């Protein structure tokens, strides 16, 4: 069992003007794979380092297994950490690097040998055991760093952007290897990244942070479908969600540019109840929830005419950067013959449309 609870955790650096982490509340369940994601400087590493014990906690309580560990030394927290730049010991061999933590903890020789050999097997490092880190590729080094964490059999794995120094292809490969490793080891894992794709593909639950504050916690699907605010909607998903200034009229229609679209009853009802009739709103819709309309005869109240600025072919799919009057709209459709300047007809999947309060940025429905 290794549950981690962050209770009103705050961090203020000695020379820092404001809080780098403001009031983190989070409960991480046993064996969960949690990903912290957010733009640079939002406090992901700081939070992770506080959990590791490398950084003092300014305020709040940290519990690992129901035990308050604010003051516990890193070595007493039963955690292992994988660093962004690997941080392998350059004067030791691969074997030495992996064995070091066990040696320091006074494990028996054959137990060390057994564990290192096993980890090397899993990670495919057998033939490199006697090499120094300098003689390894980036991907191999990262595996050694993983191995060093694995052999200790910790309750909690902490990883700070472990893949960001690898090239794109290797990154994708290591992504799935880490997931496989997680399934195998069944240890609670906290994984930090600023790459939303990594977060979406790896996480059981994602914690989205911004300027030291949690924006949303949820499964990738929850966060993708129901972003808590405009920031989350724009941060998760590629290309990002479209945000369109809109106005809801008393007849239950929204006005986007010169177009008028009627809103499904269920959405109308909620907006009405929350007093958003006749006021400015921000409508959000994902690029893949906008479809091409080929049939001219279809209901004109949901079809809009757009002009293509740029068409980006991604193989089977195509990203269209379009304009409806003055509103930018990114659309993801099946590949076709698109040229900039073309006029196309678009239909919104209105059930997928989300509405945000323009002032707070928060999701209304």
């Amino acid at each position, binding site marked *: 069992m290794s549950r981690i609870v962050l209770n009103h955790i705050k961090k203020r650096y000695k020379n820092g003007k404001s809080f780098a982490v403001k009031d983190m509340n989070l409960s991480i369940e046993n064996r969960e794979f949690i990903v912290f994601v957010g733009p640079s400087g939002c406090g992901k590493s700081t939070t992770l380092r506080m959990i590791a014990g490398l950084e003092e906690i300014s305020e709040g309580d940290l519990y690992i297994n129901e035990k308050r560990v604010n003051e516990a030394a890193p070595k007493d927290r039963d955690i292992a950490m994988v660093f962004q730049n690997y941080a392998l010991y350059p004067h030791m061999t691969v074997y030495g690097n992996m064995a070091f933590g066990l040696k320091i903890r006074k494990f028996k020789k054959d137990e060390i040998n057994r564990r290192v050999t096993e980890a090397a097997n899993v990670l495919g490092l057998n033939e490199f055991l006697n090499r120094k880190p*300098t003689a390894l590729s980036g991907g191999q080094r990262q595996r050694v760093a993983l191995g060093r964490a694995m052999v200790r059999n910790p309750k909690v794995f902490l990883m700070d952007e472990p893949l960001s120094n690898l090239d794109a292809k290797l990154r994708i490969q290591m992504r799935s290897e880490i997931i496989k490793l997680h399934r195998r080891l069944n240890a609670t894992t906290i994984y930090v990244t600023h790459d939303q794709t990594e977060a979406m593909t790896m996480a059981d639950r994602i914690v989205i942070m911004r300027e030291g504050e949690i924006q949303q916690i949820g499964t990738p699907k929850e966060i993708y479908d129901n972003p808590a605010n405009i920031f989350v909607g724009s941060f998760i998903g590629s290309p990002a969600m479209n945000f369109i200034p809109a106005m809801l009229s008393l007849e239950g229609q929204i006005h986007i540019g010169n177009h008028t679209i009627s809103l499904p009853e269920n959405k109308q009802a909620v907006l009405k109840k929350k007093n958003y009739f006749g006021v400015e709103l921000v409508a959000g819709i994902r690029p893949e929830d906008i479809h091409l309309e080929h049939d001219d005869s279809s209901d004109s109240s949901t079809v809009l005419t757009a002009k293509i600025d740029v068409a980006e072919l991604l193989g089977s799919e195509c990203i269209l950067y379009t304009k409806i009057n003055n509103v930018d709209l990114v659309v993801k459709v099946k590949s076709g013959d698109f040229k900039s300047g073309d006029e196309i007809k678009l239909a919104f999947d209105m059930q997928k449309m989300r509405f945000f309060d323009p002032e707070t940025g928060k999701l209304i429905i």
Partner: protein
Amino acid sequence: MKTKLTVTYVILSVFALGGLLPVLWMFVMSLQTPRALNSFPTLNWFKDFEFNNYQIALNQGGIYQGLINSSIITGGTLIISVTFATLAAYALANFEFKGKALLLIGILMTQLIPGMAAIVPLFDILKSLHLINTYTGLILIFAARTIPLNIWIMHGFFKELPAELREAAIIDGCSVYTTFTRIILPLALPGIGAACMFTFMQTWIDFIMPLTTLFDQNKFPFTVMLYKYVGDPIMGTNYGVVFASAVIGTLPTLLMFVFFQRFFVKGLTSGAVKG
């Protein structure tokens, strides 16, 4: 581009030759017979050179004592200075405490005091400590003199080591002490090599300090011993022998350099972090 390189090399060669000239002079002189030396400036340098001077220098015996004394003084200084400097530099590089910046600058400031200016006060201090005419006194002076720069050398090396190495060690279960001995120290070897080299050069060749604080003839390091050869009341000055002894005395420096040079080779830490 090519001419620029050539010019650079020519200029560097001139400087190198300028630096080498006294050494060459010393070496050539050490091979001359007394007769040849006395006929200066019309030297017949390469006509009747001989290794006789070396034989005389070695047979005199004093030079062995001088080299041993120099080794004791230099060795003692090396151990004390490099040990203290390394520990101090590690603390300065990795731990936060009040007045750290001031301390670092203060350490650097000590280097502004010219060595000569300190002779009389140092002599006074040694006297009140009853350390005149002892190796201990001399070693303490040399250590005090070399520790500041050694701290700066080591400080630079420790600062260059990625902080994550220390953190990885801490998470692996190291204490402050084991982190230092198992991880940091092996990686700081190039720095320690550089500090040793610097300390050795400063101490081995020093002349004034032992001359002023040592009185016992058989405690003299080889530099002072050499000086005593000049103007020997009985033998006069046999410059050939003086030069031969000087050549012998510089050999350890050369050996030190060859030995420590491999520590200067950079890149021992590459592979620790990305790239």
